[in-house]
């Protein structure tokens, strides 16, 4: 019986890992449907506990391309994702508007090829899970 007690949490964890992965993949699929007249390039999955520091993703963006970033929040979490595109720590654009509301999508018209960062956290440092879809506008 002791063996059973030891094995069950492991199995539960294994099952949960699969479930979480499947859920985030589903959210990517749903979120990708909402990119409108743009072509999917990459997706970023973010899941953060409360009071976490922001997740950071590096990406090379190309001159002459208009990029679109769409954010979708996972159900069952209080946190709403705040994304910010930065270049060398300089904030460029965010989905959090000055009035505290969220833009459904933000764009970036790249005029310089180089390394940029996508920062993602959750408003008021709440726990949250979200997917960011990066696409380019045709």
């Amino acid at each position, binding site marked *: 019986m002791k063996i*059973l007690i030891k094995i069950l949490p492991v199995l539960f964890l*294994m099952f949960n890992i699969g479930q979480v*992965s499947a859920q985030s993949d589903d959210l990517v699929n749903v979120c990708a449907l909402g990119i409108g007249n743009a072509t*999917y390039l990459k997706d970023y999955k973010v899941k953060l506990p409360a009071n976490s520091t922001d997740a950071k993703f590096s990406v090379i963006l190309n001159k002459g391309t208009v990029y679109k970033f769409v954010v979708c929040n996972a159900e069952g979490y209080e946190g709403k994702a705040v994304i910010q595109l930065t270049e060398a720590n300089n904030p460029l654009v965010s989905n959090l508007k000055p009035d505290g509301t969220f833009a459904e999508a933000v764009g970036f*018209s790249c005029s310089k090829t180089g390394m940029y960062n996508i920062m993602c956290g959750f408003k008021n440092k709440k726990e949250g899970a979200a997917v960011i879809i990066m696409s380019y506008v045709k």
Partner: protein
Amino acid sequence: MNRKISIVFSILIAGSSLLMVNCQGDNKTKKADDFTIPDSIFKDKPLMISKEAMNDIIGNMSSPVEMAALIKSTGVPFNQKYLASTSKVDKLDTDFKQALNLGIYGCDLGYLNMYEKTGSVINSMQAIKKLADQLRIGHFFDFNTIKRLATNNENIDSLMYISVSSFNNMDEYLRDNNRSDISSLLVTGMWVEGMYLACQVVKEAPNEQLRDRVGDSKIVLSDLLLILKNYKSNQAFAKLVAEVEKIKKEYENVTIQVESGEPEMIEVDGMLMFKPNDKQTVIMSDETLAKIIAAIENTRSMIINL
């Protein structure tokens, strides 16, 4: 006691099944030969850069779809002869060869999709699936859905999405599972092929934007070399690094200048958009461009003839 053992055994089987459902990998064992990259190379020798930095660099590489989109935007028509032949796919018998060529075919798939050449997509996908299966990452391709979308010419956007996301998921899986060596080869193959396609178009129909993209790829090249050099204790990697170094050498004469602009925030179709209005200029002579093109062609030739 026997009952307990039986319960434990049943749970273990159930657990294994769960794992298999989550990771429907191809368990085919690979033929071991002299050229297969031994795992010990990567486990025993410390990486020059951290695993996190490595994953970050691989993850930030531009999608080959962007290059394909840029090529199409020039108005240059589709050209089948630019694409790598998939006829030698069965002869690619090591992880190294398979991963590099998978990157090549992946980029070609983006080019085919961009021009809506759905008939050729199926042929390309068969080669991709074969290589991905051999690398034990074939489960990321929903071949039947791709085939259906391509055959029925149903929805090009969906076809593009499934193709690109399959490659992204595959790459993410490789990096998460300590197979960054394979991932770095995949990314290298994609980059080389994207550059090759751009160079062929520039040769036939000079286009300023595409020429600039070839020039500003200097920025990416250093990162690419950084990740490949991590594995250069392996002979095959060392040879590849030497080839890519030749491309880098030709880029020494390329200068990229940036003039900061007056940024503005505008609204386009209801979307808030940031325009930095910087002015990036690529200074590259025709001679330098010709040398870069030749170096890219040589590297690409080496990869597809492995």
